[in-house]
């Protein structure tokens, strides 16, 4: 008698995420959404200050070739107490560079639960959903949620108005500057890279070491591609 072939189990879909802190609060972001991780100091030379942005959480822009990225203070975005940012996440497919305290660790999530509908305000734009890691609930941020189209329009308009008014754009003189240009918003900068308490996994190190260069992130994330499901498509994960 032949036994029936065992049913093939569906492979569990996972997504690699970065757990990071903003003002002591833990968040997660898909590693596929993060193009680069840099210390604030290494990015300082490419920044310009926006004097009258009209948006408190954005005080600087970063010139990246033809493109400019707006530097968003994570604490101000989430309404958290001020902190001294140590790292910048350059977010893929957005015009956002996000100031954060530091990276907690990289891990994998197997389930992303939609944000409960009881949450019915701005947070619906901030988060893709929530996940549970080691019995801790962590919100998973939406990369495009840091700057709304209206906010981008406001920032762009502010820059255009400034450019047309004067060509003397206040460029930060970071060479030899004692303090980071990311101290905007009245926040202190420590000028020290805040290394995570947990060492990076061997996989993350090996994945990034080939692309490391002076000034790159502590984990050597710069330019590293993290293959994972499309972060813009929550349906790519089990809901």
């Amino acid at each position, binding site marked *: 008698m032949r036994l029936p072939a065992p049913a093939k189990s569906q492979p569990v879909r996972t997504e690699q995420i970065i757990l990071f802190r903003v003002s002591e609060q833990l*968040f997660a972001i898909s590693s596929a959404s993060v193009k680069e991780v840099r210390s604030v100091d290494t990015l300082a030379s490419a920044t310009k200050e926006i004097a009258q942005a009209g948006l408190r959480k954005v005080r600087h822009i970063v010139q990246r070739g033809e493109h400019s990225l707006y530097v968003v203070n994570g604490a101000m975005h989430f309404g958290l107490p001020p902190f001294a940012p140590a790292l910048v996440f350059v977010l893929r497919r957005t015009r956002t560079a996000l100031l954060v305290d530091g990276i907690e660790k990289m891990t994998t999530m197997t389930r992303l*639960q939609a944000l*409960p509908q*009881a*949450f019915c305000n*701005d947070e619906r734009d901030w988060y893709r959903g929530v996940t549970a890691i080691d019995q801790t609930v962590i919100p998973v941020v939406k990369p495009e949620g840091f700057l709304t189209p209206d906010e981008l329009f406001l920032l762009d308009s502010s820059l255009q108005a400034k450019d047309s008014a004067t060509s003397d754009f206040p460029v930060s003189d970071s060479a030899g500057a004692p303090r980071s240009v990311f101290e905007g918003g009245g926040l202190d900068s420590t000028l020290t890279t805040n290394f995570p308490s947990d060492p990076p996994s061997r996989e993350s190190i090996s994945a990034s070491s080939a692309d490391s260069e002076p000034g790159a992130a502590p984990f050597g994330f710069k330019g590293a591609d993290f293959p994972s499901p499309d972060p813009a498509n929550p349906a790519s994960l089990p809901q």
Partner: protein
Amino acid sequence: MSPHTDSESFVLLRLAERRFAVAAGDIAELVAPSRIFRFPHHTKEIEGVILRRGRIVPVCDVAARLIGKSLLSRRFYLIAQRRYTNGTEWIALPVTGDCELIFAEMIPASEADLPHVLGWLSHDGDVIEVLNLNALTPGPSPAILPAPAQALHAQEALS
């Protein structure tokens, strides 16, 4: 013949000195308080979330709206089903005492009642509000509810 033919079942919950009722069909379970996970948001009625049976359940303290003050201590979370236009989700309501399953006839709310009042029932000599969780807890289209002070005033006038 069942003694409850004309009655409906309700769960009585206690918030400080007052009791309220919720249709028993809307209740999932009563659980001991567990760790609340908090993260930034702008929905002021929601304290945070708890993990329950693998689900992430928002905690909504309805005491501020119903009795005019937040609960200082809580004994259980009453996990109820909150209906939305596209389905139902669990929501945890902190309560201060034991809950009780009763059978009673509900008198539907009138137009003069507050939106969160689904009806009234009589039990042990008390007249108890039956809560409409859809109006009491936040959602994508939050019901316009009066301020707690107004609600208290209206409740006192009715009792």
